[in-house]
């Protein structure tokens, strides 16, 4: 049962990457990545890193890809109605669905190959790796500021 | 005694120094008096030394010069029969010519410079003559070369004079190259360069080494004494003032070669071949120069070729072993040849041109010069009673004993000598005046020295036997005996030829009024057998053009370009590599990816 799910996800990722590499339009390739990342989140969940799986799906499939999608449309200069939008939503819906179900299964110790607890993770971040944690936050701050500066209209 | 010798040499040197440094402050009168005086002192000193000093030979040490390891050369002076004779002749003739120059160069603006160089010349010549070893002689040797350069090119604003001076110095320098190599060879052979040491050890030298050294030294002698092959500079040296030609190119410098060969006679004798070479070069030069002199129209050029010819005789004399005969001819030649030049000088001074075709009929206008010139001509032609006869016949006699052909060439040349001398007299003094407007006899200051020299060119001939005895102590002086009647026959032949030549000259130049004008022989002779042109083509032009070509193509072309090329190499290399900098991110990423793959491959190669 576990291997079946894994190979299913493997296929999904491979297909997604195939589309990503050879899609003629940019937004098609960007959208295909949503599937890839959510499937990857699934794999993490299968491995037992359910928390990570969840983060992956939220961060990548949700925020990053969508942001890129928006810039992609900005690039092509016209808002994209028509078939591809619907097609995109359908894909996103499918991947989210499978992902959520896997997370539920994961949490129910059926595939518990790895025992991880989010609280242990928290202690780690605020204990041993406090500096790392602070540094990354600083990094993110500079990234945001710099992108704002970059985007300022030159006087 | 060493003070006396030092005085002989240093008096003219002091004179030259004073004239060079303080010349500007000395008036004309002071210079005219001072410069001949210094040479006069040196003449008196050598006279005193000649008469008082008996125990020959002796070397007087003055001060050290170079000493490196076992090589020692000091400034010292040698006084022996040979050098005493030379010192006397040189200082005597130089003194007379200094007095003559007062008249001749009186008006020339550069007279201070002239007298300074003349003094410097006398100093160098005396140094050459009194040197006890080869390096010291070489100092005098080059010194006279320098002074001849300065004096030939005295009127330096005339290009021909400057060229002639430069030519003289360079040709002499070629000779000195041989001289130097001779000195080095002798040093490596013997380790010591004193004449007495060389002469004493000459017998022990291997013949080939002795021949090589002798021939190299003889190359130097041919350079200085204007023999084949290095005689080309003497005719051009006539660009200088006439007294200079009289002193340097007749009496003293050109005889240095003969003196050197006689000084190192044992070395030459050791290698029989060298003596043969000396004899034959001498006689051939004599003959060649005499033929050229036949057709020269410049009065000084005639005398110049005559000098080359007479020196050829001297070398023949020494070459056949009769050193005293050769030296005696040198002794007498110094007087009558300088006399001839001075007389020619007074003619030029009077008429203003050197071309005989514009002279003629000067006999009445310049009686003293005419008579004095005739005495000189008689002496040089070997007419009995005059100096030339005694010395030349002695050489011819010895030559006869050595080899018949040598004698025949010698006699014929004697005939030619008589011919061209009297051709000169008839063209300048006889016949009707051509071209010159007015001519005046030379002032006493020029006439007296000529008269003294005329006297000397007559009486000096009678002292051959005492001259021979005087040189005996040198050890290598001997004369073969000649059957008395055979000697008379030879004398008869040569005198007969001379008289015949005079008559022939009289018939051609006075009776028919015009000499040889055309024909292949005439053009060949006037162009001096094209020797100058041959040398130019053989040495000067290839050297100049070759150097110019090498300079343009090799020096600038190859080496420089190679140097600059290496500079360009780096530039081109840089441009070559710049194609990598395409500016496109993708390419840079590609190099990076390629780098990673290679690195991985190398790292994993161990594992696979």
């Amino acid at each position, binding site marked *: 049962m576990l291997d079946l799910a894994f190979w299913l996800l493997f296929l999904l990722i491979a297909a997604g990457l195939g589309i990503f590499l050879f899609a003629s339009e940019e937004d098609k390739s960007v959208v295909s990545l949503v599937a890839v990342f959510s499937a990857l989140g699934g794999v993490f969940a299968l491995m037992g890193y359910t928390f990570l799986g969840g983060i992956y799906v939220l961060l990548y499939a949700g925020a990053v890809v969508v942001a890129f999608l928006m810039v992609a449309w900005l690039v092509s200069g016209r808002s994209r109605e028509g078939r591809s939008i619907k097609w995109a939503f359908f894909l996103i819906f499918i991947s989210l669905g499978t992902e959520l179900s896997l997370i539920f299964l994961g949490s129910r110790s059926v595939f518990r190959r790895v025992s991880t607890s989010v609280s242990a993770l928290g202690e780690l971040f605020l204990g041993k790796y406090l500096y790392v944690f602070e540094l990354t936050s600083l990094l993110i701050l500079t990234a945001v500021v710099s992108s704002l500066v970059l985007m300022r209209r030159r006087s | 005694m060493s003070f006396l010798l030092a005085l002989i040499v240093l008096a003219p040197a002091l004179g030259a120094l004073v004239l060079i440094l303080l010349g500007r402050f000395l008036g004309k009168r002071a210079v005219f008096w001072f410069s001949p005086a210094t040479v006069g002192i040196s003449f008196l000193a050598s006279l005193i030394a000649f008469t008082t000093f008996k125990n020959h030979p002796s070397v007087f040490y003055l*001060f*050290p*010069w*170079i*000493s*490196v*390891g076992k*090589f020692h050369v000091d400034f010292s002076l040698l006084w022996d029969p040979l050098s005493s004779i030379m010192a006397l002749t040189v200082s005597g003739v130089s003194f007379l010519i200094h007095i003559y120059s007062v008249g001749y160069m009186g008006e020339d603006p550069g007279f201070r410079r002239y007298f300074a160089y003349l003094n410097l010349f006398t100093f160098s010549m005396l140094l050459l003559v009194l040197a006890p070893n080869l*390096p010291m002689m*070489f*100092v005098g*040797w*080059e*010194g006279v070369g*320098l002074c001849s*350069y300065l004096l030939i*090119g005295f009127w*330096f*604003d005339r*290009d021909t004079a*400057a*060229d002639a001076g*430069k030519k003289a*110095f*360079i040709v002499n*320098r*070629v000779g*000195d*190259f041989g001289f*130097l*190599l001779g*000195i*080095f*060879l002798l*040093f*490596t052979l013997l380790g010591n360069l004193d004449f007495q040491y060389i002469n004493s050890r000459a017998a022990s030298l291997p013949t080939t080494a002795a021949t090589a050294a002798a021939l190299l030294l003889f190359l130097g002698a041919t350079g200085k004494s204007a023999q084949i092959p290095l005689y080309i500079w003497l005719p051009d040296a006539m660009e200088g003032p006439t007294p200079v030609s009289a002193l340097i190119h007749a009496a003293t410098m050109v005889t240095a070669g003969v003196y050197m060969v006689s000084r190192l006679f044992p070395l030459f004798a050791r290698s029989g071949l060298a003596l043969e070479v000396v004899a034959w070069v001498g006689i051939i030069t004599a003959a060649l120069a005499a033929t050229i002199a036949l057709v020269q129209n410049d009065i000084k050029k005639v005398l110049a070729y005559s000098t080359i010819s007479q020196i050829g005789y001297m070398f023949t004399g020494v070459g056949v072993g009769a050193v005293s005969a050769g030296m005696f001819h040198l002794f007498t030649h110094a007087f009558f040849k300088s006399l001839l030049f001075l007389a020619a000088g007074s003619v030029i001074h009077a008429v203003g041109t050197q071309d005989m075709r514009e002279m003629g009929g000067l006999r009445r206008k310049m009686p003293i010069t005419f008579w004095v010139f005739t005495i000189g001509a008689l002496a040089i032609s070997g007419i009995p009673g005059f100096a030339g006869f005694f010395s030349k016949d002695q050489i011819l006699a010895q030559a006869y004993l050595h080899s018949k052909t040598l004698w025949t060439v010698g006699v014929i040349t004697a005939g030619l000598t008589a011919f061209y001398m009297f051709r000169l007299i008839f063209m300048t003094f006889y016949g009707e005046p051509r071209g010159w407007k007015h001519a005046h006899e030379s002032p006493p200051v020029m006439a007296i020295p000529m008269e003294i020299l005329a006297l000397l060119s007559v009486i000096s001939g009678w002292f051959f036997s005492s001259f021979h005895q005087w040189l005996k102590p040198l050890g290598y002086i001997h004369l073969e005996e000649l059957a008395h009647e055979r000697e008379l026959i030879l004398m008869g032949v040569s005198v007969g030829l001379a008289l015949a030549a005079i008559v022939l000259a009289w018939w051609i130049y006075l009776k028919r009024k015009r000499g040889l004008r055309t024909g292949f022989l005439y053009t060949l002779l006037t162009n001096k057998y094209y020797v100058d042109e041959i040398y130019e083509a053989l040495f000067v032009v290839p*050297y*100049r053009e*070759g*150097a*110019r070509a*090498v*300079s343009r193509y090799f*020096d600038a072309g190859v*080496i*420089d370009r190679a*140097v*600059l090329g290496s*500079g360009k190499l780096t530039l081109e290399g840089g441009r070559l590599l710049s194609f990598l900098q395409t500016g496109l991110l993708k390419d840079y990423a590609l190099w990076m990816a390629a780098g990673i793959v290679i690195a991985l491959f190398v790292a994993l190669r161990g594992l696979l």
Partner: protein
Amino acid sequence: MTSVMIFLPVAGAILLLFVPREKTDFVKYFALGVSSAVFFFSMWFFLNFNPYYPFPQFVERARWIGFGLNYHVGMDGISLVLVVLTALLSPLALASSFRYIKEREKEFYIMILLLETGMLGVFVAQNLFLFYIFWEAMLIPMYFLIGMWGGERRLYATVKFVLYTMVGSLLMLVGIFYLWKHSPHHSLYFYQLYSLSIPWGSQILLFLAFALAFAIKVPLFPFHTWLPDAHTEAPTAGSVLLAGVLLKMGGYGFLRLAMPLFPQAFKFFLPYLLALAVISIIYGAAMAFVQEDAKRLVAYSSVSHLGVVMLGIFLLSLRSYMGGIYQMLNHGLSTGALFLLIGMLYERTHTRDMKKLGGLARPLPVLAAFLMITVFSSIGLPGLNGFVGEFLVFLGSFEVNKTAAALAALGVILSAVYLLRMYQRVMQGRVKNEVFLKLPDMNLREVLIMVPLVILFLWMGLSPNFFLKKFEKSARLMMEITQQKYKTLYLFENGGER
């Protein structure tokens, strides 16, 4: 004391910095004063030098960077005479440029003083590292001298000069590293290095590296093309010091470093070096014969004269070796004098092209007289200094290698040819340009510059022993070292240090 002498010019240069630019006269005479002081220093050394002690004297040592790179100066006979030559030529070169240099005088005199320190340093350095530092340091002022006050193509010439020399000396630096590594407790002291035995293979490479650096400096035949350019573009003072001193460093480098450090390799390369020296003599003379620019002619004549010097040094017979060193001094004086005179000529006629010059002996008799004396000294007329040097070199080399000596002696003729031709084209014949007839003759300052040189020509020509004796012992020692007579030198030398 030696260090005081070397660094006096630098001190003078630093003091000059504080002098305001406008006071050019003060700058000139101050610089001249400093340079003359250095000359009197060198005189003191010359007189107090013990000619019978072959090893360096007036030695001063100090720890500097440690690891064998320490400050160690001293003078043996050979260094002494070269130091005196430098100390003599510098003030003369300085004095000759009072009217020659019109803009940026202050910097000019500072550069000259710095150059003087560099030059002196090279001759007194006893530590290879210190030698290299002075060797390179001397290039910088020379670069500015030619670069800023030179003729039209000065940038081209100076860059070519510096790069050419730099390439050579970088190879030498590599050699120095090798020696440093292999020398016992990393000492770079010359006499310690002489007793170092180096394997054959690396000795060949090392000798090539050192020989190249010095051959460029001499300059020997194929490496000479920088010299004519550097000379035509350099100002008078630059040319005088470049020809008078810098070229001697090549020869000095050979006899002090390249030959004694790698004797076997030197023996191996001897035939090629001899060939180069002889070619330099004849090639230099031939090139000089066809030059149109007076300075280029003298530059090529330097190539020829230094060919004679190197021939003498390579052949290692006592006479030729000492003759070579003596000829170095003569060449320094006579070529220095030639450049001074050509400079004075250039100040008046503003051209060096011999086609435009001619018959200048009429308006400039005194200058013509000095030029004649200098020409005859450089031709090697007996009685003047050139003859003694050339005679000894040819005499000595004739004992060792007859053919090389005979070929080299040809130079005697060729040098007369091109120098007399130059004298005739410049001084004799008719004046080509009427303006030249009214040229002013030499003033007192110029005469005072030339007089000491002419006195030296005669003094070194008539009584050479006075100078020869000073460096005879040291020359013998260097020869014996090059011929591998001493095995462990350091112990021997240590005892006798003063």
